[in-house]
């Protein structure tokens, strides 16, 4: 049996570590769960460019020749899209910079091209909608609008504390594990109830949480880890380690004509059955040699990227020459590393796993929220008969306001900025910046209001506001669902169920502040 002094020590540690990192983790989990919809959001939020329809794959040769001849910037790096759709409206795209009127500030942009019926090249910007990227960064930076390096240091620290919280939480619950696990004591004792919810979510998704904690530490801190290891292990020459991975020099591209798009597609599928290539990316190295990387997916295997794996191919023959990141073709160490990435991203098993990760992520966010409620309830001073109701501690009010403001501010902020996605590109030039402004205006406004109005009132207001923002997102998604290959309907349906849940919580909260126990920070009733 585990000693009681150890349990008591780790229970205390769990409480404080949880308070310090719980709200960061709420934002990371909520935003992370939304990133599971990255592809539908990309498809839904894309602005259709004024381009002629993409040519079939086997007739793309003319288009490619025209682009490479007339758009010199494309020669360095261009992409052939095997799959086109709202999120990839052109058969061929390439990155280039747009200079402003003074030829100074250069904005990176993506261009796409097609031929009109007269065979004239039409070029348009086809940048992907910035909202998915914004939510991904919010997730990675645990909600902090800091420069990336600083934010990642915070994320790394949060990851370490998160792991400590998991270890201490498991030690805390061990003695009563069997007794408590399947009990949900819903009722008068709110602390007990929230604790049961918190414990059940934590224990049943413990493997998921351990994976997330450990991968977060490494994702956030890999640069400093490599830098230190470079000195301690590789004597300053870590480059020699990476050189082991490259295909032998001179192997790449010694031909004048690239393999035709449809033949390339066929060759890849022959060599990697089950792998669906989506993008072929051609790059010119400084020495004039050409390099081809093929992106694609294979739901049967774990993938290195959030939605794709990668292979290196010979641009002249289509022969696969680098399969270290190709799903199902990886071996040894690379396969192990890919499993770490895939377990964090949920990039295996296709949509079923993605929905599972969405639910696990939402459940995680709820666990962190419940943890804060347990803290508040365990510091609650109870009313005694005949005596006036006690005044709750300021710390309870503070934590109550902070928990309500940060969590509901984040929920409402994400819904608001998502709802704006179809409209922003037509209204402002820098849509990415406006997604940031919108989110942080709602988030900071919500948090500020929580402190001004107090936890009881703010919970009600912010729940209604979050429900309204999420319902707006649902309506926006339904209205703009045409031409999004169904993605608008998916997003609208998920947002609608979210809005319903928030509205239900708001109705219950409205009842609680008048009829709930008055000896609570959640009550507005005057003391007797």
């Amino acid at each position, binding site marked *: 049996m585990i*000693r009681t*002094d*150890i349990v*008591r*020590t*780790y229970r*205390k*540690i769990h409480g404080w570590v949880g308070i310090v990192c719980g709200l960061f983790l709420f934002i990371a989990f909520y935003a992370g769960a939304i990133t599971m919809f990255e592809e539908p959001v990309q498809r839904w939020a894309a602005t259709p460019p004024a381009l002629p329809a993409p040519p079939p794959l086997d007739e793309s040769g003319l288009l490619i020749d025209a682009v490479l001849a007339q758009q010199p910037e494309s020669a360095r790096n261009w992409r052939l899209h095997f799959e086109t759709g709202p999120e990839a409206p052109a058969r061929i795209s390439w990155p280039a910079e747009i200079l402003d009127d003074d030829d100074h500030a250069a904005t990176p942009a993506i261009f796409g091209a097609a031929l009109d019926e007269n065979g004239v090249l039409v070029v348009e910007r086809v940048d992907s909608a910035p909202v998915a990227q914004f939510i991904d960064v919010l997730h990675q930076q645990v909600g902090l609008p800091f420069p990336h390096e600083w934010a990642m240091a915070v994320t790394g620290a949060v*990851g*370490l504390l998160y*792991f*400590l919280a998991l*270890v*201490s939480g498991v030690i805390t619950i061990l003695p009563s594990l069997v007794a408590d696990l399947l009990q949900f004591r819903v009722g008068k004792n709110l602390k007990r109830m929230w604790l049961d919810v918190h414990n059940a979510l934590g224990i049943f998704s413990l493997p998921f949480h351990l994976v997330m*904690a*450990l991968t977060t*530490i*490494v994702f956030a*801190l*890999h640069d400093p*880890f*490599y830098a*230190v*290891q470079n000195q*301690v*292990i*590789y004597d300053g020459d*870590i480059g020699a*380690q*990476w050189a*082991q*991975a490259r295909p032998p020099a001179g192997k790449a591209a010694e031909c004048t004509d690239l393999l035709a798009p449809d033949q390339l597609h066929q060759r890849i599928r022959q060599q990697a059955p089950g792998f669906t290539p989506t993008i072929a990316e051609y790059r010119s190295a400084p020495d004039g040699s050409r390099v081809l990387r093929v992106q694609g997916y294979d739901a049967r295997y774990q993938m290195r990227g959030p939605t794709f794996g990668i292979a290196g191919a010979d641009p002249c023959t289509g022969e696969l020459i680098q399969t*270290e990141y190709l799903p199902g073709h990886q071996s*040894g*160490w*690379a*396969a*192990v*590393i890919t499993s*770490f990435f895939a377990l964090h991203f949920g990039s295996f098993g296709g949509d079923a796993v993605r929905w599972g990760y969405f639910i696990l992520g939402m459940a995680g966010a709820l666990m962190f929220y419940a943890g804060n409620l347990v803290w508040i309830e365990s510091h609650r001073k109870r009313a005694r008969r005949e005596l006036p109701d006690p005044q709750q501690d300021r710390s309870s009010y503070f934590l109550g306001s902070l928990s309500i403001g940060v969590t509901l501010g984040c929920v409402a902020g994400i819904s608001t900025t998502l709802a704006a996605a179809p409209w922003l590109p037509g209204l402002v030039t820098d849509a990415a910046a406006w997604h940031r402004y919108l989110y942080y205006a709602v988030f900071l406004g919500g948090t500020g209001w929580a402190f001004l109005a107090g936890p009881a009132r703010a919970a009600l207001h912010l729940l209604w506001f979050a429900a309204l923002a999420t319902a707006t997102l649902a309506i926006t998604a339904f209205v703009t669902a045409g031409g999004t290959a169904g993605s608008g309907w998916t997003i609208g349906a998920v947002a609608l169920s979210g809005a319903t849940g928030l509205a239900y919580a708001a109705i219950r909260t409205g009842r609680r502040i008048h009829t709930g126990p008055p000896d609570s920070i959640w009550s507005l009733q005057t003391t007797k």
Partner: protein
Amino acid sequence: MTRAKLTTEGWFGKAVAGTVLGFILAVLASALFAWFGPGGILAGAGKTQFNMWLVGPVWALVLSFVFMFRRTRDAWLYLGLTSVVLAAVYLAGRWLIVSVPA
């Protein structure tokens, strides 16, 4: 004689010991694995990444269990000694590879 019970007293010192020495231990453990683990130092770029992945878990585990030390001084002493031993083994191993012909 009953042993003193474990408390959170000195938690800050223990946390600092776990953070600083935990990181040093993690890097040393990854160094030993990189050179003397399966495949040795030239087992491909995949292993180079794996070596880096080792740092996180070891660091997090040391930080998690550092509070089991009854006194802050013990945490610094035992984790420090372990670091010195691992560093010595690592340097000795590197020296052997260079000076003893295979």
